[in-house]
């Protein structure tokens, strides 16, 4: 039984990768994940916007009210260093590379052209095996059209590609008029892999305070079907390594993802909710299923249910939607009449 897979040119023991999450934010978590049997790790994202905001925040508070009152010319000691910027992140890459044997994939979210390219270069120098670009931007401006956003994404990939030789994956959101076209454009610009999909942190409202309260919630297995669908459609149409990263909670999603064409499936919510033993359970269950169904390798099943290789390619498009609607029946347990 061969569970090995290749993703971004990296050889992995199996297709279950730790997605970017708080678990991948420090060396302790990374070591625990490796011990638990994960095949590769995507680090938490380096957010350029956060670095900028933190720098300005620090500067503001160190300067605030200083040099204005004779008895107190400042209110905080000036420390030797503030570990501001990407230094801590780069140190994490170096430490993770030194102390683990599994591939370490860095993740970057920039806001300025300089930030994307500079940080990509420094991430490569720090020793990351690959880089995932976390293209995370909420276009709230009515003056900005979709094409402009897509161009912006393309430019980012071009800039980073020019800066680094690292294998490059792009983590996308699903909200494009034409996902295939965007995916194609980004791969043409230099992306080696596509990670489907990014989950926007969606707003929530606090009814007591009447305030908008951004809230992070763990994914649900039902969310898996969106990346599954698009991976199935894109596999074979676009020459890229695919990764599914939303809704992967167990062996079933892993198998389905591979069958849709993914080289890896990425897990975060299940690990946060159920613990790291989920990794071993998932890998074992995958192996068991494959044995039971007499599969020899992961490679053997990759893309087997993609649109290209499916017996019913039309199931990926609208007729499937109609059938699904028509097949819906009320749940008797809920008392619908």
């Amino acid at each position, binding site marked *: 039984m061969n569970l090995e897979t290749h993703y971004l040119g990296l050889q992995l023991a199996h297709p279950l990768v730790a997605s970017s999450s708080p678990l991948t934010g420090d060396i302790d978590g990374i070591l625990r994940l490796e011990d638990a049997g994960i095949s590769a790790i995507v680090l938490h994202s380096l957010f350029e916007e956060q670095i900028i905001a933190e*720098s300005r925040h620090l500067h503001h508070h160190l300067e605030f009210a200083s040099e*204005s009152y004779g008895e107190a010319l400042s209110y905080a000691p000036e420390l030797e260093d503030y570990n501001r910027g990407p230094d801590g992140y780069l140190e994490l890459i170096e430490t993770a590379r030194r102390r683990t044997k599994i591939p370490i994939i860095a993740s970057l979210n920039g806001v300025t052209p300089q930030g994307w390219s500079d940080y990509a270069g420094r991430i490569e120098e720090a020793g990351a095996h690959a880089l995932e670009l976390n293209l995370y931007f909420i276009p709230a401006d009515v003056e900005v059209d979709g094409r402009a956003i897509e161009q912006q994404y393309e430019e980012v990939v071009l800039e980073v590609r020019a800066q680094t030789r690292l294998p490059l994956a792009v983590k996308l959101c699903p909200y494009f008029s034409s996902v295939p076209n965007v995916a194609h454009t980004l791969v043409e610009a230099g992306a080696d892999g596509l990670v489907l999909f990014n989950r926007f942190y969606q707003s929530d409202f606090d009814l007591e305070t009447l305030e908008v309260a951004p809230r992070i919630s763990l994914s649900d297995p039902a969310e898996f079907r969106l990346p599954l669908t698009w991976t199935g459609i894109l596999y074979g149409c676009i020459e890229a390594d695919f990764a599914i990263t939303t809704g992967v909670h167990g062996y079933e999603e892993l198998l389905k993802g591979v069958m849709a064409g993914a080289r890896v499936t990425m897990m975060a919510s299940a690990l946060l909710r159920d613990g790291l033993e989920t990794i071993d359970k998932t890998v074992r269950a995958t192996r068991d299923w494959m044995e039971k169904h007499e599969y020899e390798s992961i490679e053997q099943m990759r893309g087997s249910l993609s649109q290209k290789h499916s017996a019913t390619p039309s199931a990926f498009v609208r007729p499937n939607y109609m059938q699904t609607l028509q097949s819906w029946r009320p749940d008797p347990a809920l008392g619908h009449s």
Partner: protein
Amino acid sequence: MVLSYDVAGTQIRAIDGNEAAAHVAYRVSEVIGIYPITPASPMGEHADAWSSRGIPNLWGATPQVMEMQSEGGAAGALHGALQAGALATTFTASQGLLLMLPNLYKIAGELTSTVFHIAARSLAAQALSIFGDHSDVMVTRASGWGMLFANSVQEVMDMALIAHASTLRSRVPFLHVFDGFRTSHEIQDIEILSDDVLRALIDCDAIHAHRERSLSPDHPVIRGTAQNPDTFFQSRESVNPFYRATPEIVQETMDQLASLVGRQYHLFDYTGDPEAERVIVLMGSGCGAVEDTVRYLNGKGEKVGVLKVRLFRPFSVRHCIEALPPGVRHLAVLDRTKEPGSAGEPLYQDILTAVVESGMNTKVFGGRYGLSSKEFHPGMIKAVFDELKSESPRNHFTIGIVDDVSHTSLDFDPSMMIERDSVTRAVFWGLGSDGTVGANKNSIKIIAEYTANHTQAYFVYDSKKSGARTVSHLRFGPERIKSTYLIQAANFVAVHQFNFLERYDPLAMAAPGATVLLNCRYDAGSVWERLPSRAQKQILERGLRLFVIDAYSLAQEHHLSMRINTIMQTCFFELCDVMEKETGLEAIRQSIRDTYGKRGSTIVNDNIGAVDSTLERLQEVDTSGVSMGGPEPASLIPEDTPQFVKEVTGPLLRGEGDLLPVSAFPPDGTYPVGTARWEKRNISHSIPEWEPDLCIQCGKCVLVCPHAVIRAKLCSPGEVADAPDGFKRASARWHDLPGQVFTIQVAPEDCTGCQLCVEVCPAKDKSRSNRKALNMISKSELLEEQKVKWDFFQTLPNLNRGDGTGAKLDASRIRDVQLLPPLFEFSGACAGCGETPYLKLLTQLFGDRMVVANATGCSSIYGGNLPTTPWSENDAGRGPAWSNSLFEDNAEFGLGMRLAIDSQRSYSEILLRQIGPELDEALVKEILQADQSSEELISRQRERVARLKDQLHQVEGTKEVDDLLAVADTLVRRSVWIVGGDGWAYDIGYGGLDHVLAGSHDVNVLVLDTEVYSNTGGQASKSTSLGAVAKFASSGKSTPKKDLGRLAMSYGHVYVARVAMGANDAQTLRAFREAEAYKGPSLIIAYSQCIAHGIDMSKGMGQQKLAVDSGHWMLFRYHPGRAEEGENPLQIDCKPPKIKLEEYLYSENRYSQLLRSDPDTAAALLERARSDNERRRADYEALATKVTEESPS
């Protein structure tokens, strides 16, 4: 970051006096005891910072720097360190030096080598002053310490070394003295003494001898014995040889230094005409001004000179007399101190003795000058020389003031100018928050580094903490600058805030032809007509060139908020033409990289971006053909002010305090209250606007306002019938008071724009959640309209808890209490201050019968720093009576007030019983038996006492009647409040506080706990929490916060509460009322957000809630009365933590700073803090339940 460059192997740096002293002291010391006090704090801060970075001393070891609980503690620790053989030093000033006095005698009596570095400062007498004079060091002159004075920043570095070297050789300890602020905070380019020079002067054999004298069990001795009449006197005389030898040792050390660095000093240095007949003798920074003036007068042919005294103790008569020119006829000895009742001030007395003992035919005259950094400029100095010309000059004169009471003062010409044309003089009027001072410090360092100029920078700060004004004085030129006085005629005047032209007169400093740079929203084409007429006149008459730039807009474009420092700095370099343009720009860029580099490239890029965009925005105003006609400058105070405000406060506010004569001032430091209301500061661009339709009339906005600028009132519809148009009101939601009208109004000219009220407002528009019942709006368009409304609002009647409508209020409800007039209003505290809302609440509850003892600190500064005070009085003329004694004695001070009140009340009762038969017996009985447990009952007692006094006026005036009239007011219950910060309560004043709490007297202690020394700039106190970064704890405080409440609770009879208004205002109110009602000692510890926390101050109340919700700040009340009733005295008033501790901690820069700097340490300290909080919570919960279980059900 300090810039430096080398000249022929010598390191030149532009630094201030404090750093110069600390540099030497640190290099040659092993143990350093510190405690913050202005203006010496920076020396300790430097030492602590260097130590925490592991910077070694001369011998490769890192000095141990220990913050103590007081200067007395620092001196004690130093004494011990010295006895144990260490090279030890400390830094202090003023009251701190006084606290060291007992140890000074001990250290000198034991002939112990050490140096204390003193930034000399006034002593608190009729008032506290943070500024410089020699009052403090002169108090120590009998202690047996050597006293070596430095007159400039270079001399500070040199004399520091001479003192350290001399003390080791002589065994006489030394005070190294330099003037507070004028020298401690003045920046000059100086030569840094190298380690080689330090090693050459510090005698290793003397160090070994010092160590050999130390206490060691290997060669035991005892020291510090008690002696009797048979021995003490002889022992005291045994030290004489050491004192006789010391002057020569110091001179030899000076000579040795001169041989190494070329700067030759003498114990007494004379400068001037060798044949001078008139000589001024003085010490300290004033020497520079006199030397400058002597040079000028010598150039005019006057035979004058100056004798600079460097070694004041031990005083060498021989060296003094030998230094004087032989033909001197008249000496004027100037003392920067005052000894009331003495035959003369100290230096005068010594010089007089020297002259008389040496048989010179010279007359000596004494004078006082420069107290509390009073200006001392050439016009004054010439007046002294002129006085010496007369055959019989006046003795015991003053110079620099107008003394119309004792007529001691000499007249002088304030306009006399002696500065050389080669010196460029620049003055900058900045707003405290705009970075002006920081930019000027950088500028002067750049000029020192990149040009051949000598430099000087001095900064004048405001006494206000919010909206403060700074004035920077920069000089540079080819010769060393000795002008130790403010610039009078500047070549360059920068005004960084347009309204300074309206409020002050900055252009009065502009020399003819000077360049003026103005930051304003107006461009070159539109600014002229908006300039005040006074400024227009000055510009035209003096031929000033005017440039404008909209620096605020540019700053905002580059994410610099209101910090226009680098923008204005760039303009200055362009306009002052000190160096080639691109060199100057690159120097500024490099300075930005050096200063801000470690804060991230974003900050560097933001600032450099602004610099690179500046010059294209700088515009010159064409003043050819313009006409006058600008607006008249607004008056700083209204017309209808009390006489004292008009005649004294007004000039002080206008910056004309120097012109007020002695007679204007109360001789005992007693001032009227309620004067802050007359000072219309207009420091905010936005104010809150009230929406009556949304308001739920909860009173929270009024409660949290730090400046009492937002007020609520209830009144009848008839009372608002004639309200101005647009005056907002709503039907009052008080069921017990039907038909009333409720209104909220903001004092538009007093609001600081802190937004606490808006943040705390819970009422939101149901259709637009971003609209609350209070919203910030731009002030400029609405100012006049709002002023009219505020004036009308003030005419509406105030409620009084004791009577009328006020008596119907429920004092347990915030919304009711917030209808009461605050008697603490419009303070100069920081915008968003967390302390002042508590004080204001106190005055609303008990203000008309409060006496306040206030520890030195923030609250004494915003409460009692002239020119105005926020402590106020009500319509009946009653209000808090307030006083500040010291930092260290406040609990005792307040207890004394209680004792006085109680004794007078007892005496009143005795007299009442004695005289009773002559009076209305029923009235007397009622007074003696009065229940005063509520405000209404107290009000009735007040009425009775008023009737009593009426009757006393009508009966025959016996001694008893007169006595009773004098003390009868104490028959009305008075409330004593002891107020201060955590520096006082946890550290320097803890011993006294503990003693007062241990007693049974009815005093109420309010600790405004900011968890840091706020007033002196954020040094750690024992209230500082684990993991917080503070000065003296820059690696994160590694020990837990002291649990002051628990310590007080351990007595069992002390009422204790811990409160946080932003988390639970009802609990705060309950605690205040319970504490005041409790007839024994009470302690309230109040969480107070502070700018030292590194937070958005508009969110201060939210931070309080986070502190409570995270378990950092537990709310509780411990009421001994409950135990008497069989209940548990302890009640915990908050639930267990419901958010993670880090959610609170890392929302404040004082914690997150460490997280960024040292994440591992931060994580470890966070874990310890969490564990410590859990332990404390468990302890308190155990206490809160244990007794209950044991109590009868």
